[in-house]
């Protein structure tokens, strides 16, 4: 069994009357990339701040590397790297100095530190910008610097809090590839985001948060398998009658048919060749139709089915 790096048990955090984290529990296993997915305000960052012991919390237990996480647990803090949501660097220090400064908070040995700084610069592709001041860097490069400052000391556990917000696609891909590389090198990753595509692409396991609660968890496949909706078929149809809708509902695995404007949306709960069966019906009845698309479920569908609202809302 993979060993447990982080365990959060029944965490409760209130901001006065507002319940930000509601009996939230999770585990992070060694070597995995755990995605913490949820809309803005769902409690992801609050959970991370509690995990880092920056925030006091009302109830619950947090252990990291098997020990209770406390504000003065310096031995644990030394093994964690943090990449905060907003760029957290010093604007009057150069790229190399910023990385050296933050790395120096963890590593005292100058020789070792120098090596770590060089590795972080190389990994984030900041080599040619080492003498630049942050204000001279583009948004994407700033994000890379933000990451380099959090990972230079080679932490065993790295927490990325929405690292790709407001980042161009090219930098985003570079960041995601960098995270994969760190994971390949042995780091356990916690990755919070409200971008489901990113989480789906990157993470080996996902926890979906809503209103401070853990509403679902598992691999992408497990989460999708838990859905009733397995396939959504959209069909452009000029004329739709009640009879057509009734007939379609009688086809095996079709459980919902609804009309939105000139588009018919048909949802199936499993089975195979659903599209063929439906198109066969229209051909048999000689009913003309336009464009047809079929969609497999996404994490947004998972979120929608569990919470009744869109993840993107």
């Amino acid at each position, binding site marked *: 069994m993979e060993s447990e790096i982080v365990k959060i048990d029944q965490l409760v955090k209130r*901001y006065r009357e507002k319940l930000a984290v509601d009996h939230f529990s999770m585990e992070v296993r060694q070597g995995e990339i755990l995605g913490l997915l949820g809309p803005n305000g769902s409690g992801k960052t609050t959970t991370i*701040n509690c995990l*880092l*012991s*920056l*925030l*006091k919390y009302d109830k619950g237990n947090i252990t990291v590397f098997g020990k209770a996480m406390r*504000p*003065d647990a*310096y*031995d644990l*803090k*030394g093994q*964690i790297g*943090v990449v*905060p*949501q*907003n*760029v*957290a*660097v*010093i604007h*009057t*220090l150069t790229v190399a*100095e910023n990385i050296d*400064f*933050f790395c*120096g*908070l*963890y590593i*005292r040995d100058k020789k070792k530190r120098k090596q770590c700084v060089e590795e972080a610069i190389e990994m984030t592709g900041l080599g040619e910008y080492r003498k630049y001041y942050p204000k001279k860097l583009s948004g994407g490069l700033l994000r890379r610097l933000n990451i380099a*400052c*959090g990972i230079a000391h080679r932490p065993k556990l790295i927490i990325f809090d929405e690292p790709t917000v407001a980042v161009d696609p090219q930098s985003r891909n570079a960041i995601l590839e960098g995270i994969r590389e760190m994971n390949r090198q042995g780091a356990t990753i916690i990755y919070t985001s409200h971008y489901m595509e990113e989480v789906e692409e990157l993470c080996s396991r996902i926890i979906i948060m809503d209103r401070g609660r853990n509403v679902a968890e598992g691999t992408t496949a497990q989460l999708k398998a838990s859905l009733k909706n397995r396939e959504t078929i959209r069909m452009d149809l000029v004329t739709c009658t009640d009879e057509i809708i009734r007939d379609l509902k009688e086809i095996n695995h079709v459980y919902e048919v609804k009309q939105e404007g000139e588009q018919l949306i048909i949802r199936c709960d499993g089975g195979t060749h659903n599209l063929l069966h439906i198109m066969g019906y229209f051909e048999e009845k000689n009913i003309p139709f336009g464009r047809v698309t079929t969609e497999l479920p996404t994490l947004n569908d998972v979120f929608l089915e569990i919470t009744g609202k869109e993840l993107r809302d």
Partner: protein
Amino acid sequence: MFCHIFLYRIKELLRNPWHLAWNLIFPLGLATAFFFGFGNLIKDDPEQFTTIPVGYVKEADQPFDQVLTALSKDRKDPILKVSEYKDEEEAKKALRDGDTKGYYIQKGEEISVVVGRNGVTSTTLHQILKEYENQKRVLETIGKKHPEKIADAVKTMEKGQEFLRPHVFNKYTSVYMNYFYSLIAMASLYGSWLATTMLSGISANMSERGKRFESAPVYKMTSLFAGILSTVLLQGIFNGILVFYIQYGLHLSFGVPIWQVLMVTTVGGAMGITIGVFIGALVKKRGLQMAFSLAVSMVTSFLSGLMWGEIRQIIESHIPVINRINPAAMLTGCLYNLGNYGLTKNFYRDLYSMVILTVTLLLVSVAILRRRNYDSL
């Protein structure tokens, strides 16, 4: 770890153009503006010390006669030029005519002083009488309780008087120097900005940088004291540059060895920094921190005489407690007393007040800042 944080803080703050502008360039510019405004007045200041013509109305021989005689002689530039008048009317007339700056008058055992207007001259005349009365009281007490020790006491007091002389009657200071003392006080209190910047970088509830910093395995006290020491050093250097510029660039003398001035301004700088740390400990929002720092610096500097030179003296006459609690007035008073009267009781009172304020604010701030996790971020 301490050195790592300390050195990077120095580097970070020294490269901050905002701090360089406000903590160094602005005070230098203001000093230059003051110099062009009334630099010549300082050099030709009528209040600048020269021998003080003073009247004396006596009824009978008293030991005070000897004090006045001593201060009128025995020096290349005598302190006093004493003219005796037979009654107060004559002395008043001489004062009105400008022949004297004031007069001492005996009424029985009591001696009082009447002066023309406030300034260095009036302070000096008051100071002489005050010193005499103190010494007289001490001698009377010793005479009653330990008559055998009276000779030793007289010797000690003579030494004290010698000690006082080179400072009390400094030739080179001017009342207009008060503006420069207040300017140094203002510059020192601008140190509070350095302190709030430093604090925001190490406190998770103030900035993202602070969150990253507090996620690291660093003792809070280590980071706090490394930060405070770096800012005190920087503000001390900025103050030193200002002092050197006034003394050697503008050729306006502080009237005492410059190391004494630097010592006082370094304490002043430390006081400014701890005020900033205190503000940072109480106020979380960066904008409010800056606003409070500015308000404290400007209001206290104004009350110490930055814009109206006499205000500190007026406050001292009517509500002295304000000067005792106003940090800018403490520093201004310290430099004023040092420049005009040397290492006197008043100088030490202001110096100790600064030290006490600094230590108190530091202890309170540390008590607040020592927490390492927060209710909200």
